[in-house]
């Protein structure tokens, strides 16, 4: 059994006077200790809502959560607020895109780190301060003892993200969820942060769920990749297989439409037509059908099932791209 098993997770937003939104519509995946699993997809495909649901951070009112999320024997979706809070920060921690809004602006970062250590690891004040400095040092913040007294706004974006990572790993969580942790950062800083995350996974055997829209980031560090479209996983494969032999037309479309640093001027990109707004509800067929060149009659009417293969690669398509056609 994996450390985290997510089965058929769904999140529906209902508000009076507004259209019902199936933000997450039956997502399944699992994560093992020491494994990096990617949830990748474009804006609005349900990546963040998935992670918020797992962390019990969705608004109580209006959001309806279904399915199951088994974390080492505990059903996360059934926990009350209090037990969830115990797990959050202790066993499961999260890193967000915008560190400034997830750090407390009026408390020095040192106190924010020591608080976690005292609360979740039962350390004394002195030991916690020492460990906090260690943690800041470990995430690459220079002169950590002095930094402990500083406020988030006194640090640059990259350093804030490091501070946030220090807080997230302070209580040695077994699962870390990172939601676009580097999207707001410049590429040279992104490279530093990704390196840091890889190191943490390697050294502490932490499981990492990496949420991103960037297939480049995914290619560099994720073991297992789940491609999301309109709230469902449409393709799932191990890293090398996904890039070498993508089967879902959406995955193939994405790969063909991204400009690559190692491909020169003059090579034409092949865009996916339309936009994510042109979706079919899954209940009426394949949500990608309106934008898909490989659409056939069987694409419409019923939602395509996930087709498994013997290599653990699976895709949700009735007319998948043949393996050799990729290039």
């Amino acid at each position, binding site marked *: 059994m994996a450390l985290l098993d997510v089965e058929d997770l769904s999140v529906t937003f209902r508000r009076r006077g507004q259209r019902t939104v199936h933000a997450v519509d039956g997502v399944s995946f699992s994560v093992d200790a020491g494994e990096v699993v990617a949830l990748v997809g474009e804006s609005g495909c349900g990546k963040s809502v998935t992670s918020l649901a797992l962390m019990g951070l969705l608004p109580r009112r209006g959001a309806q959560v279904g399915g199951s999320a088994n974390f080492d024997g505990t059903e996360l979706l059934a926990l009350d607020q209090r037990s969830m809070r115990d797990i959050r*920060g202790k066993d499961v921690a999260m890193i967000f895109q915008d560190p400034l809004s997830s750090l407390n602006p009026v*408390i020095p970062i040192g106190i924010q780190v020591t608080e976690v250590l005292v609360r979740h690891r039962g350390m004394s004040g002195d030991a916690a301060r020492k460990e906090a400095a260690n943690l800041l040092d470990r995430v690459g913040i220079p002169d950590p003892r002095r930094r402990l007294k500083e406020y988030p706004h006194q640090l*640059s974006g990259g350093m804030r993200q490091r501070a946030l990572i220090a807080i997230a790993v302070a209580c040695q969580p077994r699962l870390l969820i990172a939601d676009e942790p580097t999207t707001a950062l410049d590429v*040279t800083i992104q490279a530093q942060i990704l390196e840091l995350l890889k190191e943490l996974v390697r050294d502490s055997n932490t499981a990492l769920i990496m949420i991103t*829209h960037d297939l480049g980031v995914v290619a560099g560090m994720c073991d297992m990749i789940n491609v999301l479209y309109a709230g469902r996983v449409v393709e799932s494969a191990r890293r090398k297989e996904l890039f070498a032999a993508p089967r879902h037309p959406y995955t193939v479309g994405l790969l063909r439409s991204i*400009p690559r640093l190692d491909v020169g001027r003059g090579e034409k*990109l092949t865009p996916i037509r339309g936009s994510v707004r042109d979706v079919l509800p899954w209940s009426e067929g394949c949500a990608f059908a309106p934008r898909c060149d490989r659409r056939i009659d069987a694409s419409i009417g019923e939602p395509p099932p996930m087709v498994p293969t013997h290599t653990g690669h699976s895709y949700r398509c009735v007319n998948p791209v043949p393996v050799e056609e990729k290039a």
Partner: protein
Amino acid sequence: MSQPLVEVRDLKVHFPITTGVIFDRVVGHVKAVDGVDLAVPRGKTYGLVGESGCGKSTLGRAILRLTEPTAGSVRFDGVELTKLPPAKMRGMRRRMQMIFQDPMSSLDPRQNVESILVEGLQAHGIGADRNERRKIISKTLDAVGLPKWALSRYPHEFSGGQRQRIGIARALVLGPELIVADEPVSALDVSIQAQVINLLDELQDELGLTYLVIAHDLAVVRHISDVVGVMYLGALVEEAPSDRLYREPLHPYTRALMSAVPVPDPEVEDRRERILLAGDLPSPANPPPGCRFHTRCPWAQPTRCADERPVLRDVGGTRVACHWAEQINSGELRRHEVRVELIRPEGEGETPGVVSAPSEPGSYV
């Protein structure tokens, strides 16, 4: 070779930093652009890359005089723009247009597409009558791939990619020669970026447009540019034909930047050598002396780097601003560790004045 459409010489844009509530006191300057020389050839694309805050947008705006340059010269088709009286400048504007990153915030939400497009035509007195203007508009819509019915719709009724098409159409109706595109695709979803990139390419082929494309995404810039300039803290550190720059980057910063860009291919990712830069970009209000990159440069040397500012010079067809470019390229000089210096964000120092409690206890952790 013909004369370049745009020639920029020693361009500077310094923004004053002021304090004081009633009487503004200037306490320093942000040197957003600090001595840039470049030329954009006619009918070609010049790509400008660099990290946020390095001065790309300011340079683009200063070339169009949307921001007044502090010093230096900008020649457009042989005409010196920086000294042009306002009335003459207005006439020139028609020939140079800008496309912005966020199509939503650059389009007036209360105007429908038709009136957005007519506005520009009227302001520049293009088209004799309504009929002629209609014709120009419908041709432009075709060119950017928007349907006729788009005319009566408002910006919020379109997706991000379509909105960017509206932004491009607004620039195109005036029949410009130069288009400055500031991060034209960075707000768009991956699957939509390619649509807009291809559109820009096709329009260039058809209309012979000259582009200055500003972007932080190196892959995008490589894809659409003939020549690429790399900026660091207000100045160009390297400039070369696109393919050459990517094949053989000479400046240490360019090398680090390129090694940091993730490529969607595990085989490439597993093989590549990464040059991780230590620390953050220094503040342009207080740039390091000498080579501006020396505080982060893995090849910095004990002589020259910290006290002598390197100028752009030609090294085998690439223009590069590094004292040691040849020795680094030949492998004679090796990389070394760099100690991280802490960089303060702007407005640093004081502790927060307003104390507010987090909305939900524990919500910050």
